[in-house]
């Protein structure tokens, strides 16, 4: 088993251990570290984590698969998440979604062949007052318009 934490993540892991009554709490923080390290969470990484936290790989898998933000398969370098819940729908999220689909030539749920973009439909992002909301990787684009999206996508490499 060759997968392991980067040096930086190992250090962070050791610090986090001190902050919780039991190390079980570290599953989510560690899955995040894995995902930021690789862009997704592979089987080897889950086995590695299971060993580190004294759990079974099945436990880790069952936890990782419960949370929608963890990618258990590779995704595009830029994950374009379009909020589809009510407040955004009332303010035009459907047309924003269609615009992005047309521009990238893929449908929601798909990834471009060059692995650059994925479009995902997500539920309420907690940004209903600035709807429609789109989130690219970690960054929110609020009050989004097709023009704003075009400009941002155009700059992504």
């Amino acid at each position: 088993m060759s997968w392991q934490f980067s040096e930086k993540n190992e250090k962070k892991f050791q610090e986090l251990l001190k902050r919780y009554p039991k190390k079980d709490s570290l599953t989510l923080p560690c899955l995040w570290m894995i995902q930021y390290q690789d862009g997704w969470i592979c089987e080897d990484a889950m086995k590695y984590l299971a060993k580190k936290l004294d759990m079974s790989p099945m436990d880790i898998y069952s936890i990782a698969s419960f949370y929608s933000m963890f990618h258990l398969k590779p995704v595009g370098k830029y994950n374009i998440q379009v909020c589809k819940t009510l407040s955004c729908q009332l303010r035009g999220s459907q047309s924003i979604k269609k615009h992005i689909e047309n521009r990238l030539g893929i449908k929601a749920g798909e990834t471009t062949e060059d692995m650059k973009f994925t479009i995902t439909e997500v539920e309420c992002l907690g940004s209903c007052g600035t709807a429609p909301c789109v989130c690219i990787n970690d960054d929110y684009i609020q009050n989004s318009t097709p023009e704003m999206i075009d400009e941002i996508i155009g700059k992504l490499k």
Partner: protein
Amino acid sequence: MIKKIESKNFDIKDSHILEVARKNGRYSSLKKLFSMSSEDVLEAVDKSGLRGKGGGGAQTGGKWKLIPNPSQKPTYLIVNADESEPGTFKDRQILEFDPHLLIEGIICSSYAIKSHHAYIYIRGEYVFWAKRLQAAIDEAYNAKILGENVLGYDYKLDITLHRGAGAYICGEKSALVESLEGKRGHPRLKPQQKEPEWFFGCPSVVNNVETIASVPFIVEDGFEAYRAFGTQKSPGTMLFGMSGHVQKPGIYEMQFGESMSEFINRIGGGVKDGKKLKAIIPGGSSTHVLRADEIEDITLDYESLRAHGSSLGTGGMILMDESVFMPDVVKNLFEFYHHESCGQCTPCREGVGWSDKLMGKILDGHGTKKDLQTLIDLSFILNGKTICVFAPSVAYIIDSYIGKFKDEFYSLVK
């Protein structure tokens, strides 16, 4: 109409930075806090009548009193920053514009329940806000506001920020604790009598961000000052939100008891583009929908909304204008609940999916009257038979939308 207690510093430039925050009154309650005993602080919060602002409106003091005093085991304060209820976007205003208010509230609240470690569980998508809050926590540690001796007093407190990973159900308090223990976010079975939450077997409270942010004012100015706002049963203020078809969407702090229609028209500027209001969801998607003609005498407090057959919830209102077709709204909400059910209870796991499918069929024009009746019957199966109130929320959607906009639903079926 607007009353600013929690949102006092929101418009001040760089108010999230410690130096600016301090200049504008942050941490000024701590001197008084440490001159009081933990019991006195708890008593003050209890007397203030402060109610939980995460949706349920439970008495905060009553909840804190469930913690054994003295406790054999460590106690924990867990702050709910999961904010995922559709229509709700208020906690993030505190995280963005006044994170030190939350930290100050955590110090006051932890002191009251004799806790020395607080956890903040923040939804995974709030990366910007998590960074902002972590920066404020780091500043507070550096200034010795957190750590071994809070501001030189004989009190130790640590705060740890914990990120969720995309699961609405983790906002439910027991699911949140499960998730904080590193597991799947499955709500726990509730005990017969009232109990604290148990974090690794230690007595704990879970409170919403805004609830905790209300505490410093109560400590510093006293419970009477807090009670001077709002109504007898709903004292104080709340960060109310408006989204959807409203002219000026946003978050506005109001005292409880103000007129809902005035709030929408005067503060929110009325319905977008001068259209007519059709319906409003008062406090997040889990609250009963109201028709425009029902809101005339509603005031913004727990009692008034309850009396009108809905609830105040998170105070996040969603407005819908005359162009909105209600079956579309129900489909949208079903998709949300279908996606977010944690899957533990059969009525919820199967029932919500089934409702979603039926609604899809009806909207596609293939539905029959019998399908609609099945949907109405499903409400019975979803209500009161599950571990948490997620499934009943779906039942309320079926009841209130089909009940109030019957014609629109029956127009779709043969």
